[in-house]
Structure formats: C-alpha cells, structure tokens
C-alpha cells in the first residue's frame, strides 16, 4: 500500500455521495441541454419569426432572476401537483420533485442561457458563403449543417458545454428550492457545503468540499481551454 492516502480516504462516504451526485446532475443537465441548446441558438442566430424577442428573453431570464425564483417557478410548474409535473407523473411516470432528476432540470435551466449564448455567438461568426459553396457542390441543407456548419461552431459548442457544466456544478438556489437538500438524492456539493456551515463542527467538512469544488471547476476550465485551443488550431490550418 502506498503511504499517501487514497483519495477515497480524504472524503467521508456522504461527501463522496455529494460529489458523485453533483457530477451526475451536472453531466445530465449538460448532456440534456446540448441538442435543444444548439436548436435554440440557431433559431436566435438565424431565425426570423414572430416572438423571437420573447424566446430570447425566456432563455436569458434565469441569468437575471434570483435563482430562488427560478426554483420556485419550477416547483409550481414541475412539482407533483404542478400542471407539467402532474402530466409527466401521470402519463410518463416521471417524477422530478425531490429527485436528482429534478436537480438536473434546475441546473439545466440555469446553465441553458450560458450554453445558448456561446453557441449563438459562434453561429453568428460562421461565414455563410461557405455554406453557400457547399450547396453548389451538391450538399443539401442537412448535410451542409452536419459537415460544414457544425464543425465550424465546435469551439463555441465546447465552451458552451463547459460553461453549462460549471454552472450546473455550482447551482444552489434553484436546486434547493425545487428539490430540497436530501442526502443521497438531491444533496449536491453546494447543498452539502451549505449544510456543513449550518451545523456546529462542520467547518472541516465544508472546507474539504469547497476544495473539491475548486478542483472540479478548475479541471473543467483547463479542459475547455485545451479542447478549444486544439479545435481552433485545426480550423486555423
């Protein structure tokens, strides 16, 4: 056995649980947001339709609303007795309130504007003349999107995903309001840190989890930098 403590010993089991849960929630929120995020970014960047301003506002609302308000709105809408929540529970058997899936939804809603913003900017930067050229070479619009537009906006997608993931890792207000703070089900890192700060003698635990949060966030940032740089180098030729 090596002398240094295996990371498993640094954290207590319930702290591990909070970390694993946070990673699961953030990954689910980010993965689930990807396709809708690209679609909405496209609508906002290229679309010309009635209600575009409204869509733009709706997407960005979680950025400016107090997270507690967003969580409360989710509770009203997606709670067991909420209109959407009741429908999902009755017809699809999906329950979000007080489940980790609800935490993922809350994190997705909070991270969505960051994802959409990054992708939208990269779509607006795409030279549409290249798409036109692809059309003259025989590619229909779906192919043009898949093999010209998508690779060109890849750096923006990566940045958006990382931002969304980081936001989801740190999300607290909307999550705790919507799905509460249940250890093993909805207690993510921030909720666990919050709980530690509320009990006597919890400082050490809070500090450990704070360090974990910092490490995870930094790793995400470094990864996104590396990926974005690799992709841009490919694009630059």
């Amino acid at each position: 056995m090596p002398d240094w403590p295996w990371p498993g010993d640094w954290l207590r089991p319930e702290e591990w649980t909070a970390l694993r849960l946070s990673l699961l929630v953030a990954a689910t929120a980010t993965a689930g947001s990807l396709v809708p995020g690209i679609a909405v970014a496209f609508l906002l960047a290229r679309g010309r339709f009635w209600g575009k301003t409204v869509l733009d506002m709706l997407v960005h609302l979680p950025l400016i609303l107090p997270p507690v308000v967003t969580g409360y709105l989710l509770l009203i809408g997606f709670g067991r007795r909420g209109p959407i929540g009741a429908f999902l529970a009755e017809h699809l058997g999906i329950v979000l309130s007080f489940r980790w899936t609800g935490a993922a939804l809350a994190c997705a809603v909070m991270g969505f504007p960051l994802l959409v913003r990054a992708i939208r900017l990269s779509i607006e930067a795409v030279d549409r003349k290249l798409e036109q050229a692809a059309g003259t070479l025989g590619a229909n619009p779906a192919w043009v999107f898949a093999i010209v537009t998508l690779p060109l906006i890849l750096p923006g997608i990566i940045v958006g995903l990382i931002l969304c993931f980081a936001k989801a890792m740190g999300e607290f207000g909307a999550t705790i309001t919507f799905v509460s703070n249940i250890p093993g089900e909805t207690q993510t890192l921030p909720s666990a840190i919050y709980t530690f700060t509320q009990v006597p003698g919890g400082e050490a635990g809070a500090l450990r989890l704070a360090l974990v949060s910092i490490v995870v966030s930094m790793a995400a940032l470094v990864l996104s930098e590396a990926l974005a740089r690799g992709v841009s180098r490919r694009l630059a030729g």
Partner: protein
Amino acid sequence: MSELLVDVEHEQGAFRLAADFAAPAGVTALFGRSGSGKTTLVRIIGGLVRPRRGRVVVAGETLVDTARGIAVPPHRRRIGFVFQEGRLFPHLTVRQNLLFGRWFAPRREPGTEPDAIVDLLGLGHILHRRPGALSGGETQRVAIGRALLAKPRLLLMDEPLAALDDARRAEILPFIARLRDEAGVPIVYVSHARAEVAQLADTVVLMEDGRVTAAGPAAGILAASAAG
C-alpha cells in the same frame, strides 16, 4: 445545341438586369465593367439568386422557369461554382476539400478522376495542407478542382483571378486553358479583364448596365468592342 439558355429579368434595388443569351460548349465569357450585372447573372444560373422573371435551361433541363414555378435549388443543379474568394472549407484539408462534392455527385456519371484533376491543376504537393496555409493562387486552383470533381454539367467562374496579383494570374491562366481543352465541361467565365477573356473565351457575351449588348464568337466581339 446550346449547353445553356438564359432569358431572365431581375431587379435589385435600383439596378435592373434583363439578359438573354445562349452559350455553346467551350468557354463563354460574360464580359463587361464591374456593376454591369455579370455576377448577378451567374448567381442566377447557379441558383444563389432567384430571378424575378425568366428561364434558365442547362443541358436541356429547365432549372428555372418562373412562369411554371420551377426553381431547382442549388444543390440539385449540378452546376460547379468557383467564387472570387475561393471559399475553401477551413476545417478540411485540401484533399478533403477536393473530394467534398464527390460524395454528392451521381456515382455512375462519367467525370474526371481525382488524380487527373490533381495533376491538371498541379496540386499533388499540397494535398495534406489546410486552406489557411495556402497562397492565393493555390487556393483558387483547389477551388477550381473542387468544383470540377463534383461532376458538374456546367462550370461557373466568377472573376476567379480578380483577387490575385499579376504573377499569380499568369500562373493560373494556363491551368484554366488546359481545363477548357481537356475537361470537356462548358464554362461560363465572368471577367472584366480583356486579356483573360481574349486568352480563354470561345464565345463572348458583352454586358453593360444590366443588358447584353452583343454576343458571339470571341474574336469578332472583342474586336468590335475595342473599336467602339
């Protein structure tokens, strides 16, 4: 038989275009000052602009007929387009750029083989490079090869040399001349440079202020326009 029949009218702001001409095999130059409507006309032929009124027929197939509501989208026209700025895909290598249209071209259609195009345009040594690392002349040669490898029935070249300096121009002109003699694809070549037109064109369509003022065999038209 004419490879291309065009009879269109179009308005863009205050500019009016009304052009009617037929192009036989070989190189047909749309020749005239900038602003005479040449670029709008090739964009209509390629399907990038939809004319207000008129018809475009290529190799016997009607691609545009506003009276019958026909407007074939660009990706189904099988018309190659070489743009002034090259427009190579920056995320693909030269080889991938060249083969781009190959995926969408009908498989059984006869067409020039990639190796032959690479030889013809002298691209062998840059196949692995990306467009960002090419000179202006190389970029245009790749753009020409890319358009040809999509097996087009007609090749449109919109001022392909205008963005290059004289030396690069002199470097590419022979390639285009070889293309005319060996590839067997009718070419519509847009230019405002008399020297290029004189060297390449079999047929000249003279344009001025959105109208065709003369059309016919190159030598006659060029001589007449020089005298006038």
